[in-house]
């Protein structure tokens, strides 16, 4: 029994990475109506920037995370203002082409800047080690990730429900023409939301740096998982993204424990089952 609970807790920490990346993806879709396939690449850029400040330059981990968020946010700003803005009015196929193009460009760009070889810096001393949970050592780092994930969830709820900016964003999401008519600067909201979503992706990437791997191509892996999660949760629905991150993270961990042979397609089975029962996703409509 203890090992089942322990596995669930490990799954919960996996879920939090998924949550951080899918939160940004779903917010951007909810407001801009853009499926940003390059969102995983923003996760990757966030990881590389954090690696540069923390692993290469040896700056404090917290500072590296903040700088990585700012840097990736700036990249998001350039992407939105310079490129995405031009295709809002036209067919979705162009969004796909443009954002997919960004995946290739950013993958090659990180190869040129940081080289093709993987990077894994040291774990910060204050996050190293483990404590006993259900009779087994549970990593401090995974506990930290769970904490950050929950904080971000609460923070996002407060931001969208309790602040003026949140209300503006929700108004723009539900009817952009009406929002425009009542004096909301819609293009500015779009930029703000895209930058914010990019920073959430970067947060996931930056937090993973000391325990995961930083390498070209990780963005493509992440976007597949994040996309599945937003589809399960209902595209554009933040609560849905949180719940489906938990479902996918925890069930995948149990899949590894109980059905190791099916590891490769377990996440797709979860998606298929949810879509069979609720084609619009868990929380949409």
């Amino acid at each position: 029994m203890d090992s089942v609970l322990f596995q669930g807790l490990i799954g919960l920490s996996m879920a939090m990475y998924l949550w951080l990346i899918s939160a940004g993806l779903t917010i951007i879709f909810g407001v801009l109506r853009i499926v940003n396939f390059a969102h995983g690449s923003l996760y990757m850029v966030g990881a590389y920037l954090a690696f540069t400040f923390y692993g290469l330059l040896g700056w404090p981990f917290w500072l590296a995370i903040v700088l990585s968020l700012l840097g990736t946010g700036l990249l998001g700003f350039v992407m939105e203002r310079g490129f995405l803005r031009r295709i809002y009015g036209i067919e979705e196929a162009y969004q796909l082409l443009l954002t997919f193009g960004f995946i290739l460009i950013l993958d090659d760009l990180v190869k040129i800047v940081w080289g093709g070889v993987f990077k894994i810096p040291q774990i910060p001393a204050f996050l190293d080690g483990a404590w006993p949970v259900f009779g087994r050592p549970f990593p401090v780092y995974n506990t930290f990730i769970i904490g950050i994930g929950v904080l971000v969830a609460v923070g996002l709820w407060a931001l969208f429900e309790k602040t003026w900016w949140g209300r503006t964003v929700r108004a723009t999401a539900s009817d952009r023409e009406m929002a425009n008519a009542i004096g909301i600067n819609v293009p500015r909201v779009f930029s703000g939301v895209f930058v914010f979503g990019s920073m959430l992706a970067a947060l996931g990437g930056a937090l993973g740096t000391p325990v995961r791997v930083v390498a070209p191509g990780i963005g493509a892996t992440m976007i597949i998982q994040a996309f599945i999660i937003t589809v399960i949760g209902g595209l554009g629905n933040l609560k849905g993204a949180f719940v489906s991150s938990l479902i996918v993270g925890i069930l995948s961990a149990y899949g590894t424990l109980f059905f190791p042979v099916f590891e490769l397609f377990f996440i797709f089975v979860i998606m298929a089952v949810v879509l069979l029962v609720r084609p619009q996703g868990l929380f949409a409509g």
Partner: protein
Amino acid sequence: MKRGIGIFSALLFLTLVLLPAPPAVAQCQLGVPAIKIGVQGAASGPHADYGRQIEMGATMALEEINAAGGILGCKIEIKFMDDENKAATGVKNARYLVTEWGAHFMVGTDSSGVAMAMGPVLAELKRIHFFTHAATHRLTEELVADKKIKEIVRVSVPVYQDAIVAALIFKDRPEIKRWATIGADYEYGVVAWNMFKETLKRYRPDVEFVGAAWAPFLTLDFSPHVSAVMAQKPDAIFSTPWAGEAVMLIRQALIQGVFDQIQAWWQAMGGSVDVLEGISSEVQRDRFKGKLWATARYIHNWPDTPENRAWVERFKKRWVRLPNYSAETTYSSLFIIKAAVEKSRSLDTAKVIEGLKGMQIKNPGGLRVFRSEDQQFVYNVPAGRVVMDPKYPIPVLGDLKIFDAKDYYRHPPFTPVAATK
């Protein structure tokens, strides 16, 4: 007068016909502008250092061979391509290298999955590929010995080293009874684990195989795999993810306190330079408590011969890195090509294969002997514990366990090993 014309004509003849020949430069005796060798490896993602090392090994061999006059007077050219660790890309690259670029030979390839997909295509392209890392036994046992695809030659030691050497070492550890695997979820991880189980069971009927967790390529977090197998309370772990994924896995296992709970962790290919660099600080702090065992297809600190030491020095000077095994196996492949072409005096596949027969060649990694039945080069590599050695900036394999190659290579005729999970 007539005689004068005769002399003049003779001089003219000599001037026109003989002098234009390039003075003193050896001409390619095979009638090609250059011998072209296509090189492939994984050069992006967590496994990228392997492709990089393959490229470094090939480049160094090219420089040395060309500086010494080439092969039968022919310069060699190489073209490196990233196979992205994907079967489709490897096959596509092979087709491009042969049909468009005009490769006479190919070398490299990291993943067994890529190698198995390329095998039948090589027969169609009629070009020999010298495999320098891909390790599934099926490449040589099935595709060569059984299906007679003569275009496959393997220069690196196959999965025998990862699986059978591990069994030979741990059969003598009676306290280790419960084994679990964290496996790379493809051909290589599956056959390594099955071969290990089959071999160990023969020596130690008392051992149990208590758990398995399988991780596909590009797994970014092994925490669920580690906790899943640790739930079975194993005495030892047999682990096959490699390169950057091995580093990540071992470090994620460390923070789950795995090394306090087990007796041994066998990391197949953990003797790879990129892995040793990645876990250097943990080894320095002795966080594995001497329980981390690893193997490789060549290690730079063995054999302790003047040839190997000199090669490692040249490599360090050229690339400012220690050579990984994929560098040594690829470097050696080019010298094997040189020896075979010089013997057969041809670039024709069938004749070069004839030229390989009976070959015994000294490489940095020691003596390699060509085995015709499965076209596998047989040579020896030890396994050992991951330790620090003051002579090197990064950890090395120490406490070496050296077995005779004949004791851990499988021999024809081959009996099948289970290839499913």
